């Protein structure tokens, strides 16, 4: 289906008229949604054909003191990709889990929880370790975490011994 028609359909059926869609390319568009609306909106999208949840991710907007939670949905029937975004505050970040809509969201949310520290209410794995082991610093994907410093402290770099810069050969007179 054409993007315009899909957008029209969503705007008409979903009720809230004010949603602003923005085209990224012919088969991809994005939309910003209020945090409270997110469950309803995603449920609706799944019902109209966006069956596949491609990805849940987060972006740390440290200057605005916000986290952006991004849901990527694909419909191979409508042949459209939609990016749904919502913003939550950076202090004590919480958002409702969507594992009841898409079971696979359990791991995407766990991922975001581990790397950003965002708590998904309803997900049983909040605070547990998945990828990392014995992690002892702030969530690593946050913007204020510096991986190089951490690496230097924990995993020392090699110091090359016996190295002496020498002139390899007489450079032209």
């Amino acid at each position, binding site marked *: 289906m054409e993007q315009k028609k899909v957008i029209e359909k969503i705007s008409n059926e979903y009720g809230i008229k004010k949603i602003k869609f923005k085209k990224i390319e012919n088969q*991809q568009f994005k939309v910003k949604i209020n945090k409270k609306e997110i469950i309803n909106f995603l449920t609706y999208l799944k019902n109209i054909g966006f069956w*596949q949840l491609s990805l849940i991710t987060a972006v740390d907007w440290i200057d605005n003191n916000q986290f952006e939670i991004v849901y990527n949905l694909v419909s191979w029937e409508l*042949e459209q990709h939609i990016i749904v975004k919502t913003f939550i505050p950076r202090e004590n970040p919480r958002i409702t889990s969507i594992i009841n809509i898409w079971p696979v969201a359990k791991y995407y949310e766990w991922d975001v929880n581990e*790397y950003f520290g965002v708590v998904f209410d309803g997900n049983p794995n909040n605070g547990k370790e998945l990828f990392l082991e014995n992690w002892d610093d702030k969530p*690593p994907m946050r913007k204020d975490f510096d991986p190089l410093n951490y690496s230097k402290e924990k995993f020392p770099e090699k110091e090359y011994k016996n190295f002496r810069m020498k002139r390899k050969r007489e450079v032209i007179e």
Partner: protein
Amino acid sequence: MKEVKLFHGPNHPGMHGNFSVHLTVDGDTVKKAKPNPGMLHRGFEKLMERRLWMSNIALIPRVCVPEPDINETVYSMAVEKIEELEVPERAKYLRVIILELARIAVHMMSIGGIGGPTGVYTAPNWALNERDMILDIFEKITGHRIYHMYIVPGGVRQDINEEILEFIENTINDIESRLKDYYEIIFESPIIHKRLKGTAPLTKEQALDWGVTGPGLRSTGVKYDVRKKFPYLVYDKLDFDIPIAEESDAYTRLYLKYLEVKQSIKIIRQVLSDIPKGKVRNKLMGTALKWKIKEGEAYGKVESSRGEFGYYIVSTGGRYPYRIQVRGASYPQGLYGIEAGLPGTRLEDVSIWLDTMGVCSPEVDR
């Protein structure tokens, strides 16, 4: 009987890659499974934020080791979407050549990989040679066997000449001439039939619930292929079929890969005859040290050998990406799929399950 906890991997001959599954078994039957990823975690997404748009090209192929080119392509495509950068037609064809060759290489590797859990060691000895011949092509085109760093935003790094085109043609002819032997020696082999037929079944509902894509989903009858539904590069101009099956088991999934190899050869043939002349790269403004990408975000996706592979890129208009998230193609089956799908499987089939579902640990861990 008493339940026993078993660590399947990371050092296990049936494990492809550095990945571990915690199994709770009752006798030979798996009762509970918990994936334990992260052995290959390198924090790619964080590292990319610290590197220039160009320098990232060196980093990203390492996200998925067996099939690095999809990373370069999808990163470049997402960047091109944000920057609205045109790619020359010839470069698109060249990218298709690389991607399809890579698909053949990976499928060959998974056909060979089935030798591990089943004990049919003919398979790896044959199939990996096939893969190596493709690596020879890669070395000729890009200058390296595994990590090509060939596809960059705006096109590809180097043009190829007639000699290389001919070399590709000869190699795929050579591979195709042996495909019949694969059919007979591997797919008609009674051992493979005994071990794979009916093993590790997957229903359509399961596949949709877990979010499986690629051959896994197609083997349950859903005809979803990014190349057809969200055409990129020049796939809409090429003539090829998407093989699908109705009932999914380990054998079907493996056989689908074999059929896809045939389709890939067909695609490469078309590309070799259709490839237009012209330049291969549109560069961004200035030197690579100063490249900037416009403000915005985009999700680039391609059909990898294991399904939909995507990069979500956010740029704030600077010299470094603001945020990149990798959507590994085997992320759904590699994590949630294991938890939901493995219980009920017999212990000796766990390796087969992981192998034919195409769990690629580096892209899950990132």
